[in-house]
């Protein structure tokens, strides 16, 4: 996945650089705007396997955020950033319930998922743009803080009294990065829309508390140190500065 995305980005970048050499130089338009789209997690983070301790149980979700970039005068380079929130659905809660039922050899189990897989991202970094009339191709590579949340769960085994075990919700922060490209189109002066795609990556180190686990049986996760990565697609509305 990484190789495909990296290759695509490199190809697009190379094509753009070559094409820009052939056109008249034109100032890049700085912008600020809002963005949102689908987030598609990958790797172990997107698996919902009870028996795999690295499973993150994250399924396709959404992201929203504010973004912007300032392009230096007479240059195609700039600096920009994004503040975004990413929310993933929970994959295979039923698999967790079935797994605990089997692991404790009980007639039935009920699992409540507490919270969501989600991240808040504050990322900044360089931008490169290729202005093509009303169109612009924006490339970016951003890095910064990712604050991630791993949902907890409560498991009730049969209907026994006090027979509840719990994995607490946990949060962790780490350095994260994302890189991608977008096509921006100026609809009317100063107002534009864009569509883009990014690859994102971070690897927070979660420490997880568990409650009421007197016996060594059943899935028990004390820590989670697995990459949160994948692809996100975005649509956005921007205000463009300059002429």
């Amino acid at each position, binding site marked *: 996945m990484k190789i495909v995305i990296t290759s695509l980005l490199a190809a697009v970048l190379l094509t753009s650089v070559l094409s820009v050499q052939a056109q008249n130089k034109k100032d890049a338009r700085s912008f600020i705007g809002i963005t949102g789209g689908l987030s598609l997690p990958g790797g172990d983070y997107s698996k919902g396997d009870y028996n795999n301790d690295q499973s993150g149980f994250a399924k396709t979700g959404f992201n929203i*955020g504010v973004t912007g970039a300032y392009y230096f005068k007479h240059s195609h380079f700039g600096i920009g950033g994004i503040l975004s929130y990413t929310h993933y659905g929970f994959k295979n809660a039923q698999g967790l319930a079935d797994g605990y039922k089997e692991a404790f*050899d009980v007639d039935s189990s009920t699992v409540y998922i507490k919270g*969501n897989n989600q991240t808040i991202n504050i990322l900044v970094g360089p931008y490169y743009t290729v202005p093509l009339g009303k169109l612009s191709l924006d490339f970016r590579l951003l890095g910064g803080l990712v604050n991630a949340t791993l949902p907890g769960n409560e498991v009730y085994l049969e209907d*026994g009294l006090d027979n509840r075990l719990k994995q607490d919700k946990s949060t962790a922060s780490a350095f994260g990065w994302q890189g991608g490209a977008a096509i921006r189109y100026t609809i009317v002066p100063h107002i534009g829309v864009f569509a883009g795609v990014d690859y994102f990556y971070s690897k927070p180190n979660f420490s997880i508390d568990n409650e*009421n686990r*007197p016996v060594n049986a059943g899935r028990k996760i004390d820590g989670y140190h697995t990459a949160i990565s994948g692809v996100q697609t975005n649509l956005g509305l921007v205000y463009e500065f300059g002429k």
Partner: protein
Amino acid sequence: MKKIASFATLLAVLIVMLHACSKDEKAVAPPVPGNEFLTTVQLKVTNAANPADVQTASWKDLTPDDPDGVDISKAVLNLKPNSTYKVEVLFLDETQSPAGDVTEEIKERQNYHLICFSNSAGLNLTVQRTDKDTNTPALEVGLEDQFTTGPASTGTLNLQLRHQPNLKNGSCEPGSTDADVDFTVNIK
């Protein structure tokens, strides 16, 4: 510009609010009919002083729905007084052919199973579990035991297989009962 800036600010606030919100999701794994039965409980007893002195007592109920279907004709142990015996507890499902070995399953799930013994009054028998599970700290299981007899006497030895999912603490109280059977013990 002002409108977009305002909207961007609102969105930033929304992001923080969404981050704080959560909604529980629920999943239930319901009972599945057709689980295997536990029809037979056996005590395989070996005299520590004479390994050739081996006997097996067997409690059997092939028709769990029929209270009169219990076969206790072989649920009898004849032990020597003032002796020590090594004991294995075996669980079988004899509704299958060949009989299903439930003992191995219980061994795999020993961290939440416990076998409890109790004597009727007057029976001079001491039971000590000798195997332990892999809990921290390790707790007794009871699939392997040591019987120590005293002077001659007769009575009943009750055996219960306790199922203690996420509850096992070394005592017999928590959990539910998977098997509850009686053996007649003659010490003579």
